[in-house]
């Protein structure tokens, strides 16, 4: 993306500035800066998107908030609102290739539209403030602004209308449907629905995994030393099952609750380890039982816990439901993890002491 300043101005809104304290206040606001952008996604943009997906430099995927010119917009051209997260902004400007439009970028602290709407930063106050500080009413002759549907949890159209005189129109969920939408300004039911297809789930895996990779390596290394490579492999398998396999298989595991889905998946992953630990001919029967129990209790508990935590990343779990899950299943997971660990530790200590 090329972002050129076309009108030098006294206001300096740095990307990280707080919205209300941004450079210019009301007194010196008049000719707010209008930046120019285009619809091209450059290799540098792609690199930035890749880094954003891996959670790399979380704070740096930002666009300067304010008004942007896309193509050669006139006073009649439509106005679109976006977040100052590069992935959101780039999705919008590339979807609008060939259109002349204005893009009003809200300061959402580098967070995408839906998340920011949930937190309230993609919200009524910020939108009204940006409409006013950009001087939008002198730039366009109409009084309409197209807001992505997923901004709706943060923005109340009656309030925006009352405070800014701009009437909001809710565009489709996905920017890529915009060109179709703009033909009639009516969204089909499909354009209004949030799905959670395989690709969208897979794309979350990096961030989920990066999060737990470091503790996983430590635990696996410790277990390798104390209990051998198979135990280390069990740790890695449990973590991969919870963070990578679970998102991929989410909709195929036949229960509703994430915890039970996780328990099922974890149970399946645990079976081979239970077999290995439970059929060691050199050890007495109770030790085999303890080994198998460790795998069958700890692995499902770990996978179920990761699964439950994936609720925050999905597009359909209600807070009421997640809370119910926490109360129903976290105690069970804790008991399983503790009993399984005690069995495993007993076994490990007995071996170290040479009891068996």
């Amino acid at each position, binding site marked *: 993306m090329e972002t050129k300043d076309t009108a030098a101005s006294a206001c300096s809104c740095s990307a990280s500035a707080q919205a209300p304290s941004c450079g210019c206040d009301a007194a010196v606001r008049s000719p707010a800066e209008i930046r120019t952008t285009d619809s091209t996604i450059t290799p540098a943009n792609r690199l930035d998107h890749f880094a954003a997906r891996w959670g790399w430099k979380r704070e740096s995927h930002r666009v300067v908030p304010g008004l942007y010119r896309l193509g050669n917009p006139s006073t009649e051209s439509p106005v679109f609102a976006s977040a100052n997260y590069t992935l959101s902004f780039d999705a919008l400007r590339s979807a609008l290739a060939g259109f002349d439009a204005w893009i009003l970028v809200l300061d959402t602290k580098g967070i995408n539209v839906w998340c920011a709407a949930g937190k309230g930063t993609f919200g009524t106050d910020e939108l009204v403030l940006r409409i006013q500080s950009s001087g939008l009413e002198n730039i366009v002759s109409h009084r309409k602004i197209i807001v992505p549907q997923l901004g709706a949890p943060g923005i109340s159209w009656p309030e925006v209308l009352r405070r800014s005189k701009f009437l909001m129109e809710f565009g489709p969920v996905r920017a890529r449907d915009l060109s179709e939408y703009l033909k009639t300004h009516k969204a089909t039911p499909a354009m209004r629905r949030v799905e959670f297809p395989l690709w969208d789930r897979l794309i979350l895996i990096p961030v989920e995994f990066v999060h737990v990779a470091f503790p996983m390596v430590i635990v696996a290394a410790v277990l390798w030393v104390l209990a051998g490579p198979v135990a280390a492999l069990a740790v890695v398998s449990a973590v991969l099952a919870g963070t990578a396999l679970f998102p991929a298989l989410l909709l195929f595991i036949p229960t509703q609750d994430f915890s039970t889905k996780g328990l099922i998946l974890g149970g399946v992953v645990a079976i081979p380890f239970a077999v290995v630990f439970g059929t060691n001919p050199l050890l007495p029967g109770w030790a085999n039982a303890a080994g198998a129990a460790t795998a069958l209790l700890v692995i499902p508990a770990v996978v179920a816990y990761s699964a439950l935590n994936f609720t*925050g990343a999905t597009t359909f779990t209600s807070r009421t439901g997640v809370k119910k899950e926490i109360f129903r299943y976290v105690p069970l997971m804790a008991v399983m993890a503790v009993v399984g660990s005690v069995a495993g530790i007993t076994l490990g200590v007995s071996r170290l002491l040479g009891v068996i």
Partner: protein
Amino acid sequence: MFKSEEVHQNLEAKKNPSGFFDSYSETSLKYDPDRCINCKRCTQVCPHAVFAEGNEHAELANPASCMECGACAKNCPVQAIEVQSGVGCAWAMIGAALRGKDMDTECSCGGDAGSCCGQSEKTGCGGK
């Protein structure tokens, strides 16, 4: 307070008699069709088609799909809808519970969990 609530919970009970294994069959969504002026905004903002267009008023078509995002309530001009909105993020709620905070107020989903929570594009709190 909303008479429709009973109706929809009964519906849900029928649809899913084994409620125990589905934590998501009930939500805090309440809709009062008597107030509705049929402006259709709720059908536009809901990401899960919970509301459907009707002749006299919006219809609560699919209440169990509600994710409590709050978009409908926030954009209904006559307050015909109520919902306790919040992000359904176990990571943040468990964190709050462990720190002895209230699970309901403390889910700003801050920190850097890898989700809506932390944030990720398209999902979680994704969208565009």
